[in-house]
């Protein structure tokens, strides 16, 4: 599925749209980390919680759990929150 990458993470991916797979958002982030080592820890902490200022959208809807199921046709956006102006 397509995953849109915010600018602070372009140093990992080199491009703003990448392909990744996963049955859940958690799985997707594992696949992203496999392809782009280090990316996952920047958005998910060691307690498997979403970072305070990161947001995750699936098909335009914000999701609040990494257990969110995903389909191969979904589009995922990783977004930095509008925190701080």
């Amino acid at each position, binding site marked *: 599925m397509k995953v849109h990458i915010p600018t*602070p*993470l372009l140093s990992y991916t080199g491009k703003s749209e990448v392909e990744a797979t996963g049955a859940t958002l958690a799985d997707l982030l594992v696949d992203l980390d496999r392809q782009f*080592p*280090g990316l996952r*820890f*920047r*958005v*998910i*902490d*060691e*307690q*498997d*919680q979403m*970072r305070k*200022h*990161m947001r995750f959208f699936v098909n335009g809807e914000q999701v609040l759990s990494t257990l969110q199921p995903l389909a191969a046709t979904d589009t995922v956006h990783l977004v*930095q*929150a509008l*925190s*701080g102006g």
Partner: protein
Amino acid sequence: MAARKKKPAARSKAPTKKQRAQPSRTLRAPRAPRAQKLAVLVATRKGAWLYHTDSARKSFRVDGPHFLGQIVNHLMLDPRDGRTLLAATSTGHLGPTLHRSPDLGRTWHEAKQPPAFAKAPEGQKGRSVNHTFWLTPCNADEPNAWYAGTSPQGVFRSDDGGDSWNGVAGVNDNPELRKLLGGEQDGTPDGPKLHSLIVDPRDSAHLYFGMSSGGVHESHDRGASWSTLIDGLEVVGGFDASNPSFHDPHCVRMCPGNPDRLYQQNHCGIYRIDRPEKRWTRIGKNMPKAVGDVGFPMVVHPRDPDTAWVFPMDGATVWPRTSPGGKPAAYVTRNAGTTWQRLDAGFPASQGWWTVKRQAMAADSQDQVGLYLGTTSGELWMSRNEGQRWSCIARNLPEIYAVETALVS
């Protein structure tokens, strides 16, 4: 300070009044190595800068910004090779990480496994590293080893030059220590910190560390176990000084010229301890009453254990944390805290409302010691004569978090 590790010098005799009025030429223990190249490492809220100079320290070549826009809490050069830099980095949105440069900042590589607490058992609340706050290289007998202190309070160790980090379980997973930390509101406004990680140059297993809040602690087994070292330290009035969670050490430094002596700038004063004593002595009582002995940085002389510098702050009312009266000044003691002298030549004489954070003041190791400090308003100042006169190296930087000096190979 990232000065070269040196053989401890014998403790000097008490200086005369005439000696106290002068820089420490007459007190010097072994002569400082003649450095060819030095660097001042500046970590800020929005990136890092290196200022290259030589022993004369009359001109500085700026190299930066590195990590523009990223929060750099600490930037350290490895004194074991004079080339490797470690930077504790994060951003406002992303999780914390570390970067390593093997070539003085020409190239940077992100750590494969940054500091992270252990995953909590199911149903329990675990801790997450917000940022790495403090970096300390180990001794030469432990090549590639580093310690990191984090916010919230944790100790991590790397044995591969900073590429991967593991928690020191004796600290991070110790329920007794966790009790000392208080709640989230007991930390500093920027989050609770573990800082002042000190490795005894004579014994790599012997560590000290400070926690804001949580007190000062000592370990003889690389952190596997530890004991608390707070006797003699005062706390805010009305609270129990025997409870470490009420203690807020701001900065602890060990004297390279006598590793048995430590100085401390605390929330409640300036202290000295001479091990194996276990009780701190409040030497800040000898500061001028109008200035007081509140502050954040503590700087020790690279050779003379009787000499140390502080940069007092206004700790009255709501804790402005600015220079008392708007008149910036460092203070030096040349007799281990018996007396203090004001050092403000070159600083603004008025309307200088500076804040200097605990990591933002450092000394170099030259014959006549150079001092450096960075303000939260983005000014970098230095003195090439032990604080007798100050000059501004750089203005218009972001908020300065840390200043270190290093000998460059």
